[in-house]
């Protein structure tokens, strides 16, 4: 009797569920805390259910979905040993994020490239950025949502009116971000627009014009004093010492993070302190298959709108990772920002999940097109 070989998907899902279960059971055995037992069962079960049922219901891309849910679960297990209540709240945030992911997968089937789509998305994106500029004490950060809206607007305008028109919301968005002092986000947006223009338009004249405009914006911001001083501060050295303090495999002690100037929303610090640098590094390397899969989805999209939007989502998502890591390890004097999906900020997590949902939706559209082609080819035979 032949033994059925298990697929990489089942191995990944099984290993991820087992790891999350053990990582939550280990502190529960020490404390005997009911909340940790609840988390162990709830997180593992919810992760398995979300990997199976919505993926089948909405034909979502299983690799992107599984990686997104696993990284969300890593955020929960990083908080659980020290603060079970915070881990429970993070579980609720991840649940909202999972819903946002499915909404994103459905949105992509509705929106089409048109002036209406471009107008609404660029208006909302610029409104969010301008609102953040005018009202300084907003309870939630809306930068992530604004960036995604600007990418949708860019894709729609590029398809309908070409590269020159598509560049305009990106330029205005960069100006608004620079005025708020969000240099990393402004740089990510400008680089994304340039790369999208290069990949989707390809005209040297447009590329050069866009490059000159963005370079002029950053030069002007530096001259007017809107760019922060890029120097390594105490925050950076504290960040580096926090990351390496637990050693390669973790200290084995439950460490309560000191209330310092480190960004509280970043979960890379508790993760590194509780599980060590090797576990953290290997977990962060999981961004690589996520980005590669997103790029593959963009490359196989049939319509230019979907291809540009998928590539934009991947770029917006992935360009922040090296910036956050280089700042966290005190390599570059950039502002400390949380990594995607490893954050306890609900709007950021929801928008990042929504971005991955858009990718899942485009992937499902690609699969549907391929299945239709296969059906037509079968009929032709």
């Amino acid at each position, binding site marked *: 009797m032949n033994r059925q070989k298990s697929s990489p998907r089942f191995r*990944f899902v099984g290993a991820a569920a087992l790891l999350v279960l*053990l990582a939550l059971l280990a502190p529960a055995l020490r404390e005997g805390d009911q909340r940790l037992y609840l988390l162990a069962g709830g997180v593992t079960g919810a992760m398995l259910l979300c990997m199976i049922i919505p993926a089948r219901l909405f034909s979502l891309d299983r*690799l992107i979905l599984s*990686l997104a849910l696993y990284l969300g679960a890593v955020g929960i297990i990083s908080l659980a040993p020290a603060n079970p209540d915070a881990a429970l709240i993070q579980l609720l945030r991840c649940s909202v994020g999972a819903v946002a992911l499915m909404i994103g997968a459905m949105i992509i089937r509705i929106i089409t490239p048109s002036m209406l789509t471009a107008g609404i998305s660029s208006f909302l994106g610029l409104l969010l950025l301008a609102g953040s500029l005018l009202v300084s004490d907003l309870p939630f950060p809306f930068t992530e949502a604004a960036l995604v809206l600007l990418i949708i607007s860019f894709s729609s305008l590029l398809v309908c009116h070409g590269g020159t028109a598509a560049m305009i919301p990106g330029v205005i968005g960069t100006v608004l971000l620079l005025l708020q002092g969000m240099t990393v986000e402004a740089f990510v947006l400008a680089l994304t627009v340039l790369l999208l223009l290069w990949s989707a338009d390809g005209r040297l004249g447009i590329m050069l014009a866009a490059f000159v405009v963005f370079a002029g914006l950053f030069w002007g911001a530096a001259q007017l004093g809107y760019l922060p001083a890029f120097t390594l501060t105490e925050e950076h050295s504290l960040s580096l010492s926090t990351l390496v303090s637990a050693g390669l495999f973790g200290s084995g002690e439950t460490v309560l993070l000191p209330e310092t100037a480190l960004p509280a929303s970043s979960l890379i610090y508790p993760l590194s302190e509780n599980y060590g640098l090797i576990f953290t590094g290997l977990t962060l390397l999981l961004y690589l298959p996520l980005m590669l899969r997103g790029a*593959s989805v963009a490359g196989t999209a049939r319509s230019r709108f979907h291809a540009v939007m998928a590539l934009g989502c991947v770029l917006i998502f992935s360009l922040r990772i090296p910036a956050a890591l280089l700042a966290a390890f005190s390599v570059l004097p950039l502002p400390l920002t949380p990594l995607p999906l490893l954050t306890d900020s609900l709007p950021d997590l929801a928008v990042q999940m929504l971005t991955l949902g858009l990718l899942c939706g485009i992937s499902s559209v690609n699969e549907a097109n391929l299945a239709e082609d296969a059906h037509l080819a079968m009929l032709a035979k």
Partner: protein
Amino acid sequence: MFKVSPEIYKVINTASRYLFAFFALMLLLFALAWLYDERRKRRERLRYLPEAGNIGEMVVISGSDQLPADTWFPIPREGILGSLRSCDLVVPCPGVRARHLAFSWQDGAGLVIKPFSGCETIVDGISLMDAGKSETPVMVHGSCLQVGSAVLRLQLLSALEHTNRPFAAPAPSQEYTGAFTAQQPQPGMPFQQEPVLPFPDPQVPGYMDQPYPIDPPLSSDPAGDSSLPESVPDAAAASAAPAEQPPVQQAAPRRKRADRWKEDFSE
């Protein structure tokens, strides 16, 4: 709730730190293997679907030295035609600009052509610069596109759904009449089903004596078989007129892609 002693927990904690690192490594390997597996499966699917993602082909009717006639391009659902190598359809001919026109497929309509400003484009003999802005130039199966000195003909995969030419059923050949008999269905005739004997009902007494509907045996005598053509070509008659026979062809030459398109999508 259940909890273990500190000594046991210390052992569990020490083991788990190494175990979690091992699990993280395995997860990374599994994710990369999954990614590789998906790409391999997709490549295999695309190998059996060479036309996947394309709506048809553009066949060059007349081009240039760099673009000889009968060259064909696969057409994606949307893209840019121009002389730049970064275009989706590269037409290196005199008069074709770097980015000449944009095209996109609309289901049920055809290939919508949007020439860039100042780019002379002719579809089926109608110049799009002269056409009103309200008109949307659409190419259908068999439409000819003229850009610069190049003339391209569109061949769609879904040809019969997107053509502006009337589709007529082929008339039966008048020269060779022996292929069909009066009993046989012919093109254009409604299908007549032959009467079929019902199976005997086993509930009826004596059903074994009833005739059983079996297929008639194949006749070995062609003269008595009415299903064969009435006028079978006579070998003697054929040998008497050897001049009328078509010349015996040797191995068929390899057909060009454009010829195969003509046959596959002939109207």
